[in-house]
């Protein structure tokens, strides 16, 4: 699933000099603004909508957008805007949580491989190869079958599927850093191995991770939504963009907003995260 794959491992290079120079871009500002709005939605959704996302009104199904329901209602009369706003929480949770777990696990494994001896490294890398060879979606499916459905379990599923990507990246990075002259320079100064690893290897191996993880967040959100879309994610009635979308498709001729709203929400979120992530990368790489 493209969505679960972490293209964060793509060896993308720096942007062209001419565009790098401009410090501030309107797209980034818009992205940040949207993410800010999402954060508000995730923390205090009540600020953005007065409707209850779970409140059912069978009489008020498929109300078209209007003053009372800005984006209309769904088949059970629930306010679409409210569901979108409340759905932000699980999407953000998915993005941040899955990435956090994947990064933590992935870098632990990657570091183990990168710093250990040849045999441990070989074993770990073969395991990673195995994990990479199994399609992400299947990996996610198995995790969900093991743990059951639900936002948190889908989160684990997405996380586990991306662990090998991060692990591989961190290992490669550790190798690069370990071979760097400045690490040797620190050794030559007479520092302990542990100090060299702590002060130079770890921070530098992790440096690109921060930025890549940002982009990974966007991917995780998309992946989480994909799982929900396939009926493997958040349980009803909790609002979640992916399951809003798969429900919406069934009623697309009754109320197109049921598809447009969550679709747009997912796309804009991933887009914003990506834009901001790239800007971050540009900035950090501009310095180093």
């Amino acid at each position, binding site marked *: 699933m493209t969505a679960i794959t972490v293209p964060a491992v793509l060896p993308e290079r720096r942007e062209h000099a001419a565009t790098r120079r401009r410090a501030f871009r309107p797209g980034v500002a818009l992205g940040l603004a949207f993410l800010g709005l999402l954060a508000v939605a995730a923390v205090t959704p009540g600020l953005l909508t007065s409707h209850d996302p779970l409140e059912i009104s069978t009489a008020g199904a498929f109300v078209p957008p209007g003053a009372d329901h800005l984006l209309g209602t769904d088949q059970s009369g629930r306010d679409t805007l409210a569901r979108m706003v409340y759905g932000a929480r699980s999407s953000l949770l998915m993005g941040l949580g899955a990435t956090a777990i994947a990064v933590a696990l992935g870098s632990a494994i990657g570091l183990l491989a990168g710093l250990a001896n040849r045999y441990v490294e070989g074993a770990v890398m073969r395991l990673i190869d195995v994990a990479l060879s199994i399609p992400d979606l299947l990996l996610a499916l198995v995790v969900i079958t093991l743990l059951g459905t639900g936002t948190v379990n889908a989160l684990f599923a997405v996380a586990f599927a991306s662990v090998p990507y991060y692990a591989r990246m961190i290992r490669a990075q550790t190798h690069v850093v370990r071979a760097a002259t400045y690490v040797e320079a*620190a050794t030559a*100064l*007479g520092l302990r191995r542990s100090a060299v690893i702590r*002060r130079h290897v770890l921070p530098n191996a992790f440096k690109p991770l921060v930025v890549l993880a940002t982009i990974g967040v966007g991917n995780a959100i998309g992946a989480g939504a994909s799982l929900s879309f396939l009926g493997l994610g958040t349980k009803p009635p909790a609002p979640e963009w992916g399951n809003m979308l798969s429900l919406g498709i069934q009623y697309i001729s009754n109320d197109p907003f049921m598809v447009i709203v969550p679709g747009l929400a997912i796309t804009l979120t991933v887009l914003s995260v990506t834009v901001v992530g790239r800007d971050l990368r540009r900035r950090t790489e501009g*310095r180093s």
Partner: protein
Amino acid sequence: MSAPAPAVPGSATASGGRAADTTAAPLVSVDDLRVSFGRHGVDVVDGVSFTIAPGECLALVGESGSGKSVTARTLVGLTGYGARVRAANLEFDGQDVSRNTERHWRGIRGAQVGFVLQDALSSLDALRPVGREIAEPLALHTTLTKAARGEKVIELLRAVGVPEPELRAQQYPHQLSGGLRQRALIASAIACGPRLLIADEPTTALDATVQAQILALLGELKRGDAGMLVVSHDLSVVARLADRVAVLRAGRIVEQGPTRQVLEDPRDEYTKALLAAVPATHAKGTRLSSAPAAVIRATPREFDRTTPIVAAEGLVKAYAGPDKVNRTVVREVSFAVHPGETLGIVGESGSGKTTTARLVLGLERADGGHVSVRGRRWDSLTPADKRAERRRLQIVYQDPLSSFDPRYTVERVLGEAIGVTGLRAGQRRDRAVELLEQVSLGAEHLKRRPLELSGGQRQRVAIARALAPEPELIVCDEPVSALDVSVQAQILDLLADLQERLGIAYLFISHDLGVIHHVSDRVLVMKDGAVVESGDVRQIFTAPAHEYTRTLLSAVLTPAAQGGPRA
């Protein structure tokens, strides 16, 4: 395609040894050339004017960044992305080329003007056999058949002195040595018999021996009636090739005239400084730069001069290549460095100099032989002892930038090094400032990151870091090869001052014989991982015993050698 280059078979009117005809209509005429980059960029070429007559060779000299390459590229309309070019007059062969469209330029490039780019080693497409690269201008500008082009390529390769041209034409750049690559490039530039040959730093990336061969080749090519523009910051190259010299500084020509006159009797202060900074002509102990000696506050320590600080015995090191075949890169190397002295290691690129240094510092485990530090063998030391010994032996890396953690400021870099002496955190800053002063930098540099420093400044910070643990020996691995002559002079002076004041010993690695001559007390000559000769510097430089040393020395060029004796 009119006047073909000489010595190229197939170009009919080869005539050798004719002096340049400066009175004839110039081939190239540049007046008040100005080039800037970007919308508000400064003029990096700032009012340059010169002419090149047919058969004449003009050299552009000047320090790095003075605008030599930009000027050269402008002559073929390839100034660069976002460049703004203005000139009162920009003529090639009597025609105004300043308003040329891409199409016009394409007719000139390769056919009328051959261009040998500065970055010779990466100027050939790595994914194509060199033969195809050389044939490219022929395909673009002639109607030769493929077979004919193939033959012509062989001829060209032979003409530039490439042995076994049939084989070489099939090979990829990475399978060729630097010298062969440079030759292939020249062959491609002269393939269509251009009227002007531009060679940008044709020898910088090359070994002294190969350098000499290329210069000979260029010298031979010059003997036609094509014009030549040679760009270099190396005055010895210029002395050997050019009829006239233009000295560039910050985009302006500060001095222009016949080679002999400019090199022997420079009028401009800058030219004088450039000439003075060449180390080869100075014995150890003379100052190279005009800058005052650094203030070094420290009492000289007393050394036991009888025990060497480090002694290497029969060092052997082999690496497995990508093909899993072991290659011995250091063979049976033995030497000792005593306190307060400088041991120079010289040898061509890849001869094992750096590897030897790393073995000495215990950063690499030797496959044979051993290293003793102050009488104790590395391999007998506990890790803690090793760490303690490491402080006495420091290193200044070949590439200082990569030896700094990119996240660290100068203050942290130095702080870490000071830390190993056990100095308390509160006092580190003062010590750091003191170290910076020793290398003629100020406290204002403390907050900078390595990337925010110039090459010379970085080298100094690297030296300051090496000084921090108060070492007895510093390994200097090509500490100046990446630097300008002027900056190089400052660094060499600094090292000399430090040795004088602090009695530090150096293991000084360079492939630049001039530099080695200037700094060393004793010299080790390496070839293919083995020491072929060692001894006192004067003895080696005046009476080399080994054949290889003699080749090396004979390839050394000095401006003086061509331009006459200097004071």
